[in-house]
């Protein structure tokens, strides 16, 4: 059996505002093996994004165990979490989340800067990444000068900057027309072929069908009608 990159056991997330509680995740079990392409589906409010945030170490669970590469994440410090986000995980968001004042080049450079990659190496790497997503000629463009598809490709290049094992994508095609969405999906498939582990939240059935495995969520729980490993 392949190595579990992501291991979740009864992961819970409770939000508290004053006296009011809200349980976004009520006990999720999940395992993701190295090199898998997984789609997470579920209706709005089912906890997909919360799950994604916890998986991506943007947030910590309030219950259960989350192991990333056999390391328990629950108790890590904020700096350790930041380093994990920097090196082990690449994020792709529905809203792209590029820095609006920075060029494509600078946006891709950001994670490399945090990883303290030296100047020359950094330049080579940014060029290589942007070429890989087909934007070698748009390096100096700012997000406002690019189409949605192009912005998302910049975001993917940024996610790949420090060669993370895992790519987490939260509805990466949600803001795109079907044509550019298709191109993005194709890019993810290429990444998967090159050995990356990919977890993708999606509403799009056609995309979910291409995944090796689909995880369904409902009301903060695994939807047992679905496929669960």
């Amino acid at each position, binding site marked *: 059996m392949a190595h579990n990159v992501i291991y979740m056991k009864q992961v819970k997330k409770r939000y508290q505002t004053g006296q009011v509680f809200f349980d976004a995740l009520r006990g999720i079990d999940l395992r993701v093996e190295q090199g898998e392409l997984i789609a997470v589906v579920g209706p709005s409010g089912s906890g997909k994004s919360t799950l994604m945030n916890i998986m*991506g170490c943007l947030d910590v669970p309030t219950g259960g165990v989350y192991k990333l590469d056999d390391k328990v994440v629950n108790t890590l410090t*904020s700096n350790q979490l*930041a*380093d994990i986000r920097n090196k082990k995980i690449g994020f792709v968001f529905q809203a792209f*989340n590029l820095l609006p004042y920075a060029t494509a080049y600078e946006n891709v450079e950001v*994670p490399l800067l*945090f990883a303290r990659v030296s100047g020359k190496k950094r330049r080579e790497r940014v060029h290589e990444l942007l070429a890989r997503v087909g934007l070698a000629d748009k390096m100096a463009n700012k997000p406002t000068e690019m189409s949605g598809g192009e912005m998302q490709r910049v975001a993917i290049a940024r996610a790949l900057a*420090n060669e993370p094992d895992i790519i987490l994508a939260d509805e990466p095609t949600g803001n795109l027309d079907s044509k550019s969405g298709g191109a993005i999906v194709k890019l993810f498939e290429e990444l998967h072929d090159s050995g990356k582990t990919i977890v993708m939240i999606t509403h799009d059935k056609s995309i979910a069908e291409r995944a090796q495995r689909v995880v369904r969520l409902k009301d903060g729980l695994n939807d047992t009608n679905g496929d669960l490993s």
Partner: protein
Amino acid sequence: MNLTTIYNVFIRDFRKQKKRITLTVIALGWGTISIMVMLAFGEGLHRQLMQNKRGLGEGIGILWGGQTQIPYKGMGKGRPIRFTSEDVEFIEQRVPNISLISGEMHRWGARVRYKDNVLSEHITGIGPEFEHMRAHIPERGSRMINELDMQLRRRVVFLGDEMKANLFGEEDAVGKTVFIDEIPFTVVGVMKHKMQMSNYSGHDLSKGSIPLTTFEAIYGRRYLGNIVYQAHDLDRMADIEKQLYSVLGAKFQFDPEDESALSIWDVVAGMKEMSNILLGIQIFLGIIGGLTLIIAGVGVANIMYVSIKERTREIGIKMAVGARRGYILVQFLLEALIITFGGGIGGILISYVLTEGFRRMPIESDVLDFMGRPVLSPEIGVTVVIILGAVGIVAGLFPAMRAASVSPVESLRYE
């Protein structure tokens, strides 16, 4: 992030909040100017007053004979202690910490005449030591009383510059004859003009000084008005005082503990006290200026809070791709410092131009002779930069801490 990016972010922010940032930078500049100009005036005042203080003499003490208050060795109290020229030699031999010493005699209301100009002025009998001890510096082309004048009891006179002006006007005085109490004296020197803040027998500029030996011979005086001495080492002034009591106590038969037997004015101690008072004034001026700067700092904090609110999403993005909280903190702190020093450096330059301009203005005024002119010393520069840095850090720290403490998830969701 590299400096270009920080710069770009800053420029973008600047465009967004042009008015607010401009006003704050002006406030910072104003605060800096006020603190610098105040400190510069304080420094000028300090220097001028210390210099004026030195007009009396540097590192000197003035000794008068007093009256005993404690009965001693069978002698009652109330005995006057009076010094003669021999006592000056006696002290010089026995108190090693004294480098220069001279007796002094006074005659107030002496009739001083040159041609038809008659003055009623103060004539002192002094020694050549006064040149160094009491800043009797001769004008170019003239000299102070010297040792030979003393030995030969020459009838020569060294005029204070005001006395010279009153007697001679614009006319050259050196070599001319003036009559003091109708006795002819040759003018050998005129004192260079000096500011004199304190005195014990009137200001030197309106006095005429003749050799002490000549004074004794002409007026038939035996007792000195006072003795002036200078210490080798300024820290030894208290020791000298103690030695004077014991040495003179032995000679004049008074109790060395009898304070009223002698009267000593330690000018060094007075200078130190004055210097401390002036330091106090400068600190006070600095605090007033500093308060202005602190108010400007509130403006910086305000801008940083707004800027952080507007950039919440950016903070979230950076955190998502691996920025540690420390990085976010430093980034905003740096921006606060850029704004602070932007205003600060402008203020420093303007203050420099202002004080230099004021210093070079060709105004002659008694007030300025007393107050001095503003001076920007390196210490002031360092103080202001430290205060600016502190204001920038404090103004930036709280907003930056807030920026660094936001949760990445929430800041990504922020619209």
